[in-house]
Structure formats: C-alpha cells, structure tokens
C-alpha cells in the first residue's frame, strides 16, 4: 500500500510543476506592458516603470523569473490582490469554506438521490420508473446549469417566495465566522432562526450545483448495479435465502459502489467549475465568484494564483480518490 501511495505521489510532483508553468505562462501571455498590467495602471512614469521592472524581476531572463515565482510559492507568498491589497492566500482562505459548504451540500444531494434512483432503476429494469430516471438523467447531463439556476430562482424565489434569491444568510443576522461554514456558525451563534435561514439560502444553489453530478451518479449506479446483480455471488446469496434487501444492499450495492466512487471523485473538478456558475447566479461569496470578479477587474495576481490554488485542489482531490480507490479495490493497488 505504501509503495502504491509513493508511486502516486511521484506522479503528483511533475503535474504540480506543470501547473505552475501554466499559470506562470498565462500571466505573461496577456497582451500589453507587464508592469502596467501588474500595477493595474496605464502610462506609468518611466523611472517608476524601470524601478518596477527591477523590483518585480521582469528584466531577468524567463527561466530566472520562473525560478523566482517558484521560490515565492515555496515561501507561501501568493501575491497581493490589486483591488483589496490583501494577500491572495488570506482572501482564498476566507472564501474557500463557502465553496466547500456549497459543494458538500451539492454532493450530499446528488449522492443520496443518485444512489437511490440508480439502485431502484436497476432493480426495476425496463419499467416506467427506469425509463424516467434515464430520461431525466440524460436531460440533467445536458443541462446548462446557469439557466437551470435562473429557472429555479424564478419559480421558487420570485413566484412562490419560498427561498431567498441570493447570498448565504439574511443581513438581519450578524454571524461571527468561526468555522466558515454558515450552517455551523449560525448554530453556534445561538441566534433564533439563523440556522433555518442559512439552510433556506443553501437549498437552491446546492440543487443547481448537484444536478449534473446527480445525473452522472444515477446513470453510473444503475449500470454498475445491473452488472453486479448478474454476478454468481448475488445468485448464491439469493439461493441461500437471504432477504432481498440484504442481497441488494450488502452483496450488490457494496460492490457496485467501486466505479461509483471513481465517478464521485471525478465530479469534484466538475463541481468546482460548476461552482463558478452557481456562485455567480446566487451571489454566493465563494472562490468561483471571486475568480470571475477578479477577471472582470483585471486583478491578475488573484487570477493567476487563484487558478493555481484551484488546480492544486483538483489534483489533491484526485490523488485522495486514487488512494481510496486503491483501498477499496486491491486489484488496482497491485497493478503497475
């Protein structure tokens, strides 16, 4: 197992350097003068310009500039936002829990509903329910989620008035950020109604973000389940006279979960991309909205290292999923 982890870690390192190379190159491909771009101003005074070139190390050869960049990263220096003058890292840390909260809620929604729908569809193969689930999941897979979000807002928030339109919690409540997770913080605050209000803010964004994972998980669970139910050990379990529920959930689902787990992991990248759209629609103060606003404001240090942080996150999650997958399935662990 340890050598398996070590091998995967070894693959991680070149990927990480590749991503830094990508973000390093991105910022240099912006058309225009680099100093003006980095300072966010036009027509900088020539003396200051030369000074800035010196200070930013822009007059060095490219490889030296890249080494500087890696050196800064190694010291945990991700630069400063041009807009707020705050460090990119601390901005990321304050906003990140909001995205995690949203993504976890979306995964919970997609995972629970997707597993149930997939299992039932597989058990009732060919039934109306099966066709319904497959049809809806195909539609969900093709869904432009930014439009889906607008539709849900229009229906539930504007017409029915059930849920708020945007944000994480009503401005009435003054919640001190302790964990960064609004659901937990609102409970800790002890303010009456705060938790329910936070929950109502969370529901629609979670559904929107969870829609595509839901479709993928339902489809995957169904096909994995169909495969497993055909296996000899399921027939044996049935023949032993075990209850149908035990056969389906203990013998069947447990083995069907392995491919589903992989899909779950692969969805994390998709979730982060979806978060950009979902957070923009619902004004959810997470890293997706932060990134889009920074692009709009030409806040390049934030864009550059925000992208780096998100990429590292995806790499890390994929790594963890790989390890989990190896734990769940010894055949993967021992293959080279």
């Amino acid at each position, binding site marked *: 197992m340890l050598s398996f982890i070590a091998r995967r870690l070894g693959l991680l390192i070149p*990927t990480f350097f590749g991503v830094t190379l990508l973000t390093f190159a991105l910022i240099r491909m912006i*058309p225009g003068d680099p100093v003006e771009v980095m300072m966010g101003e036009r027509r900088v005074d020539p003396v200051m310009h030369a000074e800035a070139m010196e200070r930013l190390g822009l007059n060095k050869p490219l490889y030296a500039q890249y080494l500087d960049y890696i050196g800064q990263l190694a010291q945990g220096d991700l630069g400063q936002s041009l807009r707020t003058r705050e460090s990119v890292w601390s901005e990321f840390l304050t906003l990140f829990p909001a995205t995690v909260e949203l993504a976890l809620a979306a995964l919970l929604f997609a995972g629970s509903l997707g597993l149930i729908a997939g299992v039932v569809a597989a058990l009732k193969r060919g039934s109306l329910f099966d066709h319904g689930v497959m049809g809806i999941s195909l539609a969900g897979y093709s869904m*432009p989620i930014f439009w889906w979000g607008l539709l849900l807002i229009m229906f539930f928030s504007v017409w029915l008035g059930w849920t708020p339109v945007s944000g994480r919690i009503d401005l009435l409540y003054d919640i001190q950020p302790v964990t960064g997770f609004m659901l937990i913080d609102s409970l800790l605050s002890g303010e009456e109604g705060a938790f329910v209000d936070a929950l109502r803010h969370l529901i629609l964004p979670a559904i929107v973000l969870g829609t595509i994972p839901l479709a993928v998980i339902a489809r995957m669970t169904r096909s994995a389940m169909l495969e497993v139910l055909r296996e000899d050990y399921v027939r044996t379990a049935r023949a032993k006279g075990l209850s149908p529920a035990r056969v389906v959930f203990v013998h069947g689902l447990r083995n069907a979960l392995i491919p589903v787990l992989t*899909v779950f992991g692969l969805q994390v990248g998709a979730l982060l991309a979806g978060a950009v759209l979902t957070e923009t629609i619902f004004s959810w103060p997470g890293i997706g909205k932060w990134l889009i606003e920074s692009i709009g404001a030409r806040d390049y240090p934030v864009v550059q290292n925000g992208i780096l942080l998100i990429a590292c996150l995806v790499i890390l999650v994929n790594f963890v999923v790989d390890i989990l997958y190896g734990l769940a399935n010894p055949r993967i662990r021992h293959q080279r």
Partner: protein
Amino acid sequence: MTATTTPLDQALLYPSPLKEFWQAFAHNKGAVAGMLFMVLLVFCALFAPWLAPFDPSEQFREFMLTPPAWLEGGQWQFLLGTDELGRDLLSRLIHGARLSLLIGLASVVLSLLPGILLGLIAGFFPRLLGPSIMRLMDIMLALPSLLLAVAIVAILGPGLINTIFAIAIVSLPSYVRLTRAAVLGELNRDYVTAARLAGASLPRLMLVTVLPNCMAPLIVQATLSFSSAILDAAALGFLGLGVQPPTPEWGTMLASARDYIERAWWVVTLPGLTILLSVLAINLMGDGLRDALDPKLKNAV
C-alpha cells in the same frame, strides 16, 4: 431437369457498411429524434437571414418586453415575444443557432486535427515523445474544462474567436488520449506488421494504415465535445467572457435577461431551453452513434 436456383441477393447478405450503420442507428429512437432536431437547427443556422422575421439587432422601442404571441398582450408579429430592448426573440434565437453551431464546429475541428496528430505521435513514439505529450495533457486535465477556458479567455480577452480557441484547447486532451489508446491497440495487429514489412513509410503507416481503424471512438468523442462546446460557449457568454452583446449568442442573451426575471419569464426561459434542447439532441445522437459504431463502448460513461 435442373432446378433454377434464384440468385441470392448479395445486397441483403452483405449490407454496405453505411446501410449497416444506419440500421443500427435507426434502431435507437432517441438518436433519430436528436438527429431530426439537429437537422432543424442546421437548417435554421444556414438560412437564418431568410427564416428570421426581423433583423436580430433591430430594436422596436414601442414593443419592449412584449410577451409571446399566445399570451395576453402578445403581438403576432413577435411570435416568441421581445426582449428588454424590443428585439424579436425568435429572430435572435435563430441567428444564435448560427453562432453556437459555428463555435461548436470550429472548436471541434481546431482540436480534433492537432489532437489526432499528437495522439498518433504519442502512440508511435512510446519512448520519449509519447510520455511527455501525455504528461502535458494530464496537466491540462488538472483544471476543470470550464475553468481552463475561463482562464484562457481571461488572458486573451473575450470575443468569438477567443471563445473558439479556448474551447478547442480545452477539448484537446481527450482527443489525444483517445487516439493514443486506439493506436496502441492497433499497433500490434498483423495488418500493421504486414504494412511495415511491405515498406510503408511512417506517415503512410500513421495516416493510411492505422488512423482509419481508430476513427470510431474519435467520431463519438467529436459529437460529445460538440455538445459540450455549445454548453461551454454559452456558459462563457453568460459569465460575460464569451461572445459580447449585442451579438445574439444564447448564453449572452441569458446574461442580460437576468434583470427581468420578475417581469418577463420568456426572456429567461427561451434561450436556455434552446441550449438544453440542442445539447440534448446532440448527446442523444452521440449515444446512437456510439452504439452503432462502437459496441465496445456501450457501457462507458
């Protein structure tokens, strides 16, 4: 007396590949429905200026936010209603089909060709070039596709051409991986060895001998990335990073429709529905193509 045997109809015994393909494809009703919708869409895109009742950017100031014709207050001249500047929605949707199909087609071609080339090289040179190409692709896959597209557009600036470029770059890795995998599967086959022994040159071996046998998964992937290109282009437009207004791109139309969510549901609903139906149609078609061309892939996601 010899019985005259009726000659067997050769065409029935050995149907042409095209006919065989069509029989398998037509078996899938969803795929046929998807294809019909696509035909309609392509027709709209090709003949947009003649089909659309109005110019997509013509503003009828006295008819701002007119509801669709069948509703109270609707006007029969504006079948699907008008938007916040009094522009005819139907005309804009028809012209939007042009843009979406153009983006899809251009980005698929722009990523398919280099993707195939890189994949062939990676497959034929497994020592040095192959692994380095594949590592590069892994790095590109480390970022979710929409985010990478957002990053590219953030640097190059918004617009139609840059949207196409961004989406083409984003879908490159899947073509490279697929081509390489297919090439590696074919390289040890006898016919390849035979061609090698016969003295076929490397380009001939790559393009004439091996490539045609790798096309099935590539065609399926091209269809699927066509639909995700439309979806990503609309998402970029919605974020304000894609095609810029007043161009009638479906995602861009949705971005400006957000402010009228309380008053004019049709401005919000119709462009998104068009996106959903188009993407759904292409995905249905892709499923049918996959089943017809490549039964091995049937259960793959």
